[in-house]
């Protein structure tokens, strides 16, 4: 009886709520050994409860149980199985339940791996995670319950938003949430440390893998989102400074700052109170991002699912959690005394500069995202903050940061001034050589190329110099991977932006047009019927000097449930360039408008992020044997 499963899922949510309340017993009842043991067990038990509830939701989707309102709104019987499953987290209610699953999973891990912390810290830490889980779950049950029932049961469901019927969007939300919510572990730990006498080096060491893991997931989530936007929206762009993208980018920048400052705290016992403050703010920005996206306060390309009435609940939670965290910090920050001082030109000094630049960059994005909202609320003239603003304020902050990144290997290996100058000379020669290859036309573009060479060459010089010292290399390999990834990303972003060719024109079947060095011939147009959409697929033959290069097949789809056609870009992706064709409108029977983009090196943007993620993975080192008293 498939019908019952919805009730089981609903019941488990309520059970989860009870479990969270029981979890808090050492805090609300007595802080005895027994209640502490209850807390430790409940913090583990929460994950299976919520996970099974979520599996129930998926089952109702697969079983086409349209007695559930959420299922009937986001799925229908003609949807392929994979999208029936992923539809479970495609809408607001389901994705909030996914958030709860991820949150319970992190609490499970936190409970499993915190046995080496001393008891009071562990109890406080898990209790704060319990409060967070309680809050999220309460939000789902009270305002966004995916198990709510329909008054009348429809024969078939609506449909999954066609934009979301895509592999990228199946994996993007879980990865992003793993990152967002992973930061709640860091937040809870930081707040728990506020109630201790000191923030010990060992504790900073304990939290570091959690920061790195969350950061890696966040990076992956954002990269997947940007990749999806690139091939699915049909505009050839990969980052739009859309408020929803900004909502994920802000915690990422803060987490990047944090993963540097936490190294200084764990190794030298400095920046203690700053690291705690940063931890609190980083997760606060994750929450703020969720608030912005989920409350419907932003209307933008990404907001598919929102309901303004929920905003009040999230806003309240936001104020309570951030306020609580900051209050705990403010009352206790005086007692954190750093073990030593810092010089500006040192690794720790660089961490500080990195933090200043990254936090300012975050603030800039926050300002750009919130300012139009504030003007709107105050009833002043509406404005739009977009690419030109961020180019003017964000990019200048990144340039000094990148120069610092490139200088790190020189700093660490204490290279003499003479060889520094030789290195700089070689780097300039290579940069100028590359500038000719890519026919550089602007200063900013040259800065991009120089930065890439600057970072990569300095890393290679250091590898060359310390090739006999494997311990040193092993210690630095994570950092070098991440910084190398950044360099690859920069060259991809700057070359694809500066040397892109974008044309929009109409083409008749049989006609051809030259864009850049390639000829594009509009060969034919085929019709295609799928289970839940009809499509026309164009065949574009690309050739160079009459030599066949490739065939590109852009599509226009019309989903049965929707009246607006969807564009599926056709992409011929290679390491050195992407040829990108997207169909526009039909002008007459055999004539279509289309956009043809030639984007050199654009793939390096995502390849760069893969290196960054690998860097984070290589840097994760658990030292489980130690007891952090």
């Amino acid at each position: 009886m498939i019908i019952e499963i919805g009730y089981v899922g609903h019941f488990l949510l309520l059970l989860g709520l009870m479990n969270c309340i029981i979890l808090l017993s050492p805090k609300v009842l007595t802080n005895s050994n027994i209640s502490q043991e209850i807390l430790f067990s409940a913090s583990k038990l929460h994950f299976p409860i919520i996970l099974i509830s979520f599996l129930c939701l998926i089952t109702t989707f697969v079983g086409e149980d349209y007695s559930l309102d959420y299922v009937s709104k986001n799925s229908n019987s003609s949807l392929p199985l994979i999208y029936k499953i992923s539809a479970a987290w495609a809408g607001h209610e389901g994705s909030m339940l996914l958030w709860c699953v991820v949150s319970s999973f992190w609490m499970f891990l936190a409970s499993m791996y915190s046995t080496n912390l001393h008891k009071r810290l562990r109890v406080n830490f898990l209790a704060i995670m319990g409060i967070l889980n309680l809050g999220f779950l309460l939000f789902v049950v009270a305002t966004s319950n995916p198990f709510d029932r329909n008054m009348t049961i429809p024969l078939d469901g609506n449909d999954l938003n066609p934009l979301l019927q895509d592999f990228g969007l199946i994996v993007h939300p879980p990865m992003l949430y793993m990152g967002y919510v992973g930061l709640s572990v860091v937040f809870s730990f930081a707040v728990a440390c506020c109630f201790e006498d000191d923030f010990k080096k060992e504790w900073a060491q304990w939290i570091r893998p959690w920061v790195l893991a969350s950061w890696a997931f966040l990076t992956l989530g954002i990269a997947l989102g940007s990749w999806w936007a690139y091939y699915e929206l049909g505009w050839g762009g990969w980052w739009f400074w859309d408020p929803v993208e900004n909502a994920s980018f802000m915690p990422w920048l803060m987490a990047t700052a944090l993963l540097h400052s936490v190294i200084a705290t764990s190794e030298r016992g400095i920046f203690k109170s700053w690291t705690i403050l940063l931890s609190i703010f980083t997760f606060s920005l994750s929450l703020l991002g969720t608030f912005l996206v989920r409350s419907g306060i932003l209307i933008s390309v990404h907001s598919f699912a929102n309901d303004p009435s929920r905003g009040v609940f999230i806003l309240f939670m936001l104020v309570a959690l951030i306020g609580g965290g900051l209050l705990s910090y403010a009352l206790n920050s005086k007692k954190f005394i750093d073990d030593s001082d810092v010089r500006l030109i040192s690794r720790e000094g660089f961490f500080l500069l990195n933090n200043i630049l990254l936090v300012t960059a975050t603030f800039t994005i926050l300002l750009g995202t919130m300012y139009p909202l504030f003007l709107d609320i105050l009833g002043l003239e509406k404005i739009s903050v977009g690419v030109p603003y961020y180019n003017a304020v964000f990019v200048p902050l990144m340039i000094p940061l990148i120069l610092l990144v490139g200088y790190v290997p020189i700093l660490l290996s204490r290279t003499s001034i003479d060889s520094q100058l030789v290195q700089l000379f070689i780097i300039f020669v290579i940069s100028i050589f590359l500038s000719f290859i890519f026919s550089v036309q602007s200063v900013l573009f040259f800065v991009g190329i120089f930065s890439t060479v600057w970072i990569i060459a300095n890393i290679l010089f250091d590898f060359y110099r310390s090739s006999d010292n494997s311990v040193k290399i092993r210690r630095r390999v994570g950092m070098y991977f991440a910084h190398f990834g950044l360099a690859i990303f920069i060259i991809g972003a700057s070359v694809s932006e500066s040397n892109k060719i974008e044309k929009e024109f109409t083409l008749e079947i049989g006609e051809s047009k030259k864009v850049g060095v390639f000829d594009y011939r509009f060969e034919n147009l085929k019709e295609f019927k799928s289970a839940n959409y009809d499509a026309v697929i164009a065949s574009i033959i690309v050739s160079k000097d009459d030599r066949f290069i490739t065939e590109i097949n852009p599509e226009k789809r019309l989903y049965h449930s929707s009246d607006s056609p969807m564009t599926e870009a056709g992409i011929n992706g290679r390491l050195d360039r992407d040829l990108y064709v997207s169909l526009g409108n039909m002008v007459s029977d055999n004539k279509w408008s289309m956009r043809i983009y030639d984007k050199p090196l654009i793939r390096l943007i995502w390849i760069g992020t893969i290196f960054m993620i690998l860097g984070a993975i290589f840097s994760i080192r658990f030292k489980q044997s130690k007891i952090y008293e």
Partner: protein
Amino acid sequence: MRIYHLMIFLLISNTSFASVDIERQYTKLIEELRCMVCQNQNLAESEAPLAVDMKEKIRDMLEAGKTEKEIKSFLSERYSSYILYDPPVNMQNILLWLGPFIFIMFLGYFLLRRYIK
């Protein structure tokens, strides 16, 4: 097929530009202007009928020798400065433009003074 009926029939008059320079200006301009009927898209990305008309208008103005600045002020007078992705520097937006500068001074002063010997 239903797909054909729903396609909007648009007539795009001439697709070649008078000069490469004008084409470059045009491409840059349509990326910095907002489509007024879409959620958050620039004119370059949008295929909405209003956006297509506006692009046509911008192209005509460029070919008539109007500068980028003239076109922007023409459009923002007509549609309010909401159309500009580059918000104007005025009293209302002063904090938007100066905010990052003030912030970095404040944060830099606070952190460097506290931690640097």
